[in-house]
């Protein structure tokens, strides 16, 4: 790394321990990922009304976007049936080993009233944050925001496997790949598909229920744009309180 780069890094605002998820919260999220129905409890999933979550996304109200194309995904969450075809497609497309994942599906049972419950599935993946904590903490710039698309990508030759990014990620979206000897994560299928001319991620293409809507949010004709800007549609993001400004939105219907 050149001196100028180090100096530039040193000028960055200090993260401070406050910005890292607390161990309890992190533990909670991990429990949520492996055991079903345990990740209730407020801070893991904060549901906010459309206005607040849109405010969380810099410039979205002004319809200004840092990137072009600015890739985003809208999850029509209530349509998810946990068939896991998205996960299968992801594993196949991106050679994901069985000890890790780039995308997974959470499950919870919500009790509406005594004896009246409903089950919901919540697909999760890297949120390709506009202010990604993982990028801020990476000591070798191995993980970075793609300057064109805004996708949070990995340059595995620079990764030293320190796993700091795993600790910093509010979404538990990273794992250490033993074959690559580097951290691996969802890159919206940039390397496997988008860079080769495909327009959809493998998971979005595989979803039979129309849950994962992927596209360029700056394109007014894209379904992502239409869903995000549909009047009266309630949107939310996961864990807005972290200030990471995610690009994966959730909605119903």
């Amino acid at each position, binding site marked *: 790394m050149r001196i100028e780069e180090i100096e530039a890094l040193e000028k960055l605002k200090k993260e401070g321990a406050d910005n890292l998820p607390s161990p309890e919260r992190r533990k909670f999220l991990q429990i949520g*990922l492996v055991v079903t129905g345990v990740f209730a409890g407020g801070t893991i999933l904060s549901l906010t009304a459309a206005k607040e979550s849109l405010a969380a996304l810099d410039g979205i109200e002004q319809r200004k976007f840092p990137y072009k194309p600015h890739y985003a995904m809208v999850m029509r969450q209530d349509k*998810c049936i*946990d*068939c*896991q075809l998205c996960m299968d497609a992801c594993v196949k497309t991106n050679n994901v080993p*069985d*000890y890790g994942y780039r995308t997974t*599906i959470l499950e919870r049972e919500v009790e509406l009233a005594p004896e009246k419950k*409903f089950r919901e599935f919540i697909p999760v993946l890297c949120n390709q944050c506009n202010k990604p904590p993982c990028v801020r903490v990476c000591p070798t710039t191995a993980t970075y925001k793609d300057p064109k698309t805004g996708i949070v990508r990995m340059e595995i030759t620079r990764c030293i496997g320190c796993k700091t990014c795993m600790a910093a990620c509010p979404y538990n979206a990273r794992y250490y790949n033993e074959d690559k000897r580097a951290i691996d994560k969802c890159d919206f299928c940039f390397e496997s598909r988008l860079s080769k001319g495909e327009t959809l991620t493998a998971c979005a293409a595989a979803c039979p*229920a129309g849950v994962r809507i992927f596209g360029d949010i700056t394109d007014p004709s894209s379904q992502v744009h239409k869903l995000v800007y549909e009047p009266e549609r309630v949107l939310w993001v996961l864990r807005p309180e972290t200030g990471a400004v995610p690009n994966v939105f959730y909605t119903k219907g």
Partner: protein
Amino acid sequence: MKKYIKIVTLLFAVASVGYAIQAKAGDEGHGGTITFTKPVSSVVFDHKTHIDMGFDCDSCHEKLFEYKRSSEDKADFNMASMYAGKYCGGCHNGNTAFASNTKCGSCHNNVKSKIVFAKPVKAVIFDHKAHIEMVGDDCASCHDSVFPSDKKSEAQADFTMDSLYKGKYCGKCHDGNMAFASNTKCATCHIGVKGYNRMFKTEKTGHKGH
């Protein structure tokens, strides 16, 4: 004294074994209870009940049923044959005994309480028991007009949500009038791969430490 205890124990053991053998022979003597697994796995036939009614072996064997358990392997072991006087229909014709097309639940009394479909996607749960409670003994509300018993719905190419929206399969009732519409409350029936794994095997999600 020790010797005496030993002898008593031995006698007791011999007696118990003897009793067990006798009991077993007794069951086999009249064929016991048969649970048929084909073409549907829900019919229980109790030999003793029928013998107690005064029938003997010759009443059924071998003109209706071979002594060897073989009926369920035959292609015509179905309701249509019974209506034609074969198998159970030899007596269950409305004269000798209640007709085969009535009182379904008297024989089909071992229906699976929960059916799990794994195709075209994993996985959908159907709570047979809960639905039977809703319709009472009226099996005909679904069988065979909506779900033919001789066909596996999963194996049909049109066993899809689109068909349901057109009023086929579950969509016959799940239309928003009789029951919640098929395009709502997805996860009520769709239990997913996680639900499937919980029901059929030990959790294998690929996550460590679990």
